[in-house]
């Protein structure tokens, strides 16, 4: 169990960085895990090809909440392509049935590497990925909304 519930996961499931709401996001996505009714909403604002603002809200298990909280720390303010790339690598990790990816990728993932053990429990895969599904979806929307340089929405934490 320690392998699944790494300390960083337990910590983030409580501290929940980035929880909040944007006043006028460029993109927003609501996702639900129908098995358990867990939900999350991810909001993004995009400026100069960077994820300028990010906020999330939701309810769920320690895995899903920690995933959202760590996602915030990893992608907020980052270039879009880096955020997307990170998402791809994280998905790959979670689908790797509990095995680590190559050292280079594990390094890129930084604290997200704590989720390695989740891949061993197929019922929890969706928990780890719910937030990232929402992020991908929100970014697609944002790219549709923002053709020119947009207004930067403010966080109401």
């Amino acid at each position, binding site marked *: 169990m320690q392998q699944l519930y790494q300390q960083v996961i337990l910590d983030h499931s409580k501290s929940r960085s980035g929880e909040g709401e944007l006043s006028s996001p460029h993109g927003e996505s609501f996702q639900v895990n129908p098995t358990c009714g867990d939900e999350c909403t991810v909001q993004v604002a995009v400026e100069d090809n960077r994820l300028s603002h990010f906020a999330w809200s939701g309810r769920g298990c320690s895995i899903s909440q920690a995933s959202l909280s760590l996602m915030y720390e990893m992608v907020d303010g980052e270039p879009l392509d880096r955020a997307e790339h990170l998402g791809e690598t994280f998905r790959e990790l979670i689908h790797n049935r509990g095995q680590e990816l190559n050292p280079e990728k594990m390094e890129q993932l930084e604290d997200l590497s704590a989720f390695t053990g989740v891949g061993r429990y197929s019922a*929890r895969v969706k928990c780890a990925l719910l937030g990232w599904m929402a992020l991908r979806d929100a970014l697609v929307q944002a790219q549709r909304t923002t053709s020119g340089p947009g207004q930067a929405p403010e966080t109401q934490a």
Partner: protein
Amino acid sequence: MNDLLELASDFPLLSRTVRGGKPLVYLDTGATSQKPESVLNAERTFNQTHNAAVHRGAHQIAEEATEAFEAARSAVAEFVGVSFGEIVWTKNATEALNLVAHGFLNATLERGGSEASRFRLTSGDEIVVTELEHHANLVPWQELAAKTGAKLRWIPVTEDGRLDLEQLDVITERTRVVAFTHASNVTGAITDVPRIVERAREVGAFTVLDACQSAAHLPVDLHELGVDFAAFSGHKMLGPTGVGALYGRQELLEALPPFLTGGSMVEVVTMEETTFMPPPQRFEAGTQMVAQTVGLHAAVDYLSAVGMRQLSAHEDHLARLMLEGVAGVPGVRVLGPTSAEDRLAVVAFDVPGVHPHDVGQILDDQGIAVRVGHHCAQPAHRAFGVHASTRASAGVYTTPAEIEAFIDGLHRVVKFFA
């Protein structure tokens, strides 16, 4: 103490281990039961020896298959106290409940001739369900209401997870259907069926009973209960997946328009139109789950040999142990009655600050299999102010030692996330 059964060795799956050699403690019978060897053997023997299309061939194996199939119907009918022709095979309870709801829809769309007119709904009509229903006995009625213009109303749930029978006046002269569960798969509460049936009869409404949880755990006599329709699933009562049944009062099945259409339920078919067989065949379109009905036959034989009273006393004892044990874990709240009266050994609970997924995971790590989530009953959870819960549920094969292991495990959960 002589309430206690020791039957686990009849169930091959229960001897397996999980998570690196830990003995399995299976407390997810409310979701699906394990099957005794006799059920697996019955299905296998049928497939190896008597498998053929039923009601069709003139050859010997087809005759044997037909006899096995109809003998299963007869055994299941007797098990729930109804007549042979009142049992319709379905793939699960969900299909059975949909069949009834679609019977009303089809009558409303003027199918089924004049005898079906008693099932026609209009926008002045009301359908009553309850806040405790499994989605299987809620969503089909929502759909029926949306399609016919009838209004959906419901009996609310009390704080301790029972139907609030003080509010039976939601059933009025406008009510045409009252659909309700015999036992909640969340709170374990057993419904006072006669009271609801009495009220429904006063206003001339049809009653539809969800007997999914009761059929495997209580003596059930549907004629005595007096309901018009009832649904249950084989996989919850020691039988195979892929088979369930609808009970319908003979006279009602005779008037109800068909639902699924196709082969084996028709009389005369021309390109322009079709006449249909009498029940139960009218509702059994296409090749049926024959091997699975034979398995279910063996399952009800097994349950009858144990004795439903004996079984229910056994589970009563387990329910007490579970409730006592859970009450001893600091902070844990049971969603449902905290006393074992009129209650199944199905205990859903909330561990404040720990999500059910995490509760279930730590239990699983100890070999204890429970269910987490909303158990297909979101409104019931909403009534308790939670979105999901953890549920332990027992069966004929569950032992007191397993309940103990579960309670120990639950203490460990609380410690882990403290």
